[in-house]
């Protein structure tokens, strides 16, 4: 079980390193998107093993499911994947060094035999903590209200109604 856990940590951290290096080195936009997904999955796996399960899941849902997907929308709609960027060896060197520097503390921690202690934070705990602090509740309500107002404004904007009436030009 111990060995399995160590293996899982190693694989996830390797995925983070490979993903972050790949995202910088890759020469086509869609490859960059794919490497970002690899890095994000690695981060989510580490978070999940540390006990922040719901943070890990939200990381996958929001970061990959939304942010990276929207990046892919831009890549597909602008068609910017066809021209590869020039190959630069210096970029690879920088990327490897940055990844090594970011992961060095974890490596030192792992080699010294100390393993990160698991914490268990459930959604319910987080929700109770949020709702017991009145400032957080007010901020949350304001945030949701702002999003709703913006969504209504966008849906009623002239651009949206012209798309609806004119049949749209979205491919």
């Amino acid at each position, binding site marked *: 079980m111990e060995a399995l856990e160590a293996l899982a940590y190693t694989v996830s951290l390797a995925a983070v390193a490979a993903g972050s290096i790949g995202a910088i080195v890759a020469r086509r936009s*869609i*490859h960059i*998107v*794919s490497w970002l*997904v690899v890095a994000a999955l690695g981060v989510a796996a580490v978070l999940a093993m540390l006990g922040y*399960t*719901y943070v890990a*899941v*939200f990381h*996958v*849902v929001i970061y*990959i*499911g*939304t942010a*990276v*997907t*929207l990046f*892919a*929308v831009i*890549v*597909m*709609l602008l*068609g910017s*994947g066809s021209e590869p960027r020039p190959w630069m060896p210096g970029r690879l060197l920088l990327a490897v060094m940055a990844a090594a520097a970011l992961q060095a503390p974890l490596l030192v921690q792992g080699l010294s035999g100390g393993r990160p202690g698991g914490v268990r934070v*459930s*959604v*319910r705990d987080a929700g109770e903590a949020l709702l017991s602090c009145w400032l957080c509740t007010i901020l949350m309500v304001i945030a949701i209200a702002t999003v*709703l107002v913006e*969504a209504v404004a966008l*849906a009623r904007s002239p651009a*949206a109604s012209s*798309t*609806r009436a004119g*049949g*749209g030009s*979205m*491919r």
Partner: protein
Amino acid sequence: MADPVAWLAGLLGVPVWLARSVFAPLVYPGLLAFTVVALFIIWAERKITARVQMRVGPYYVSPRLGGALQLLADGVRIAFQEVIIPRQVERYSFILAPVLGFAVTAMALAVVPGGPGVYGFRSSVGLLVAYALLGLAPLLVVVMGWAANNKFTQIGAAREILVSVAGEVTLLASLLAAAMMYGTMDLVEIVEAQAAAGVPGIVANPVAALLFFIAALLIADRVPFDLVLGEQEIVQGPYTEYSGVLFALTMALDYLKLYILMMLFADVFLGGWMPFSDPLLGSAAVFAKTVALMLAAVFLRSVYARMRLDQVASMFWSKLFPLALIAFVLSAAVHPLYGGVLAG
């Protein structure tokens, strides 16, 4: 026999968690069950569509069974077909994307319970895990469409990404409304709450159930929302250039999404194994509900036409999403029905 998986683990001398995490994704509700369901559903889809259009449908392979073995024959043919890789494609992305897409989506079957005690692993956020894994597939479909380097595939990929953003927002909103109603995101607890209250979720919150079903149709590319595959317009969408086993994987991907989403629907809104608590009977109940829902979903193909992309986008963003807010209000209203059960 209280728990067949635990019994199997004892027989093989392996820990129960290992037996669970292998049994669920591979046998039931995993890939083996999915293969059987997919063969049956595709046959039923062709047969039902044929009946509606006053044709016969699959017939010559096994006439006595109504052509039920046609799909098996097709499968054998596809398995031995040459995989053609066109010269203009990006080789590795082209081959890896459908394989990874299918594998990632199939991983969701490890969390969705197929019966009492029949799950790969149980998590306090199981609902979100299944949703997150389903949300990874559109990106790989985009990679497929991009790698094939073809007009049809690129248009299909652009459609996939626009459509999946709209569908997933609605799906997540309906799932969160359901989670709010039950007060938990653990799928097993959700089913138990429904069983204890004696009221399936679809009765308590029909709005969320309806939204989930419509969004599931969009995500699994079913008519009336099969824009991504639009055969008359863009050949086969992002899957145009695939042949042989890779083509089978891309087709299976959409049916796999439908299977997972309908099993989620059965668990979250139809009470899962509700009338039973025995593992075997309960699993049979979940399986029967899933197959019935899938049949309803494929039946829509013969009665609806395809919607236009802008119609779909405007319907999901400006009509269904506000409806999701109503579903939240409804959830808050019916929460006491289930809230008391879990606390007690």
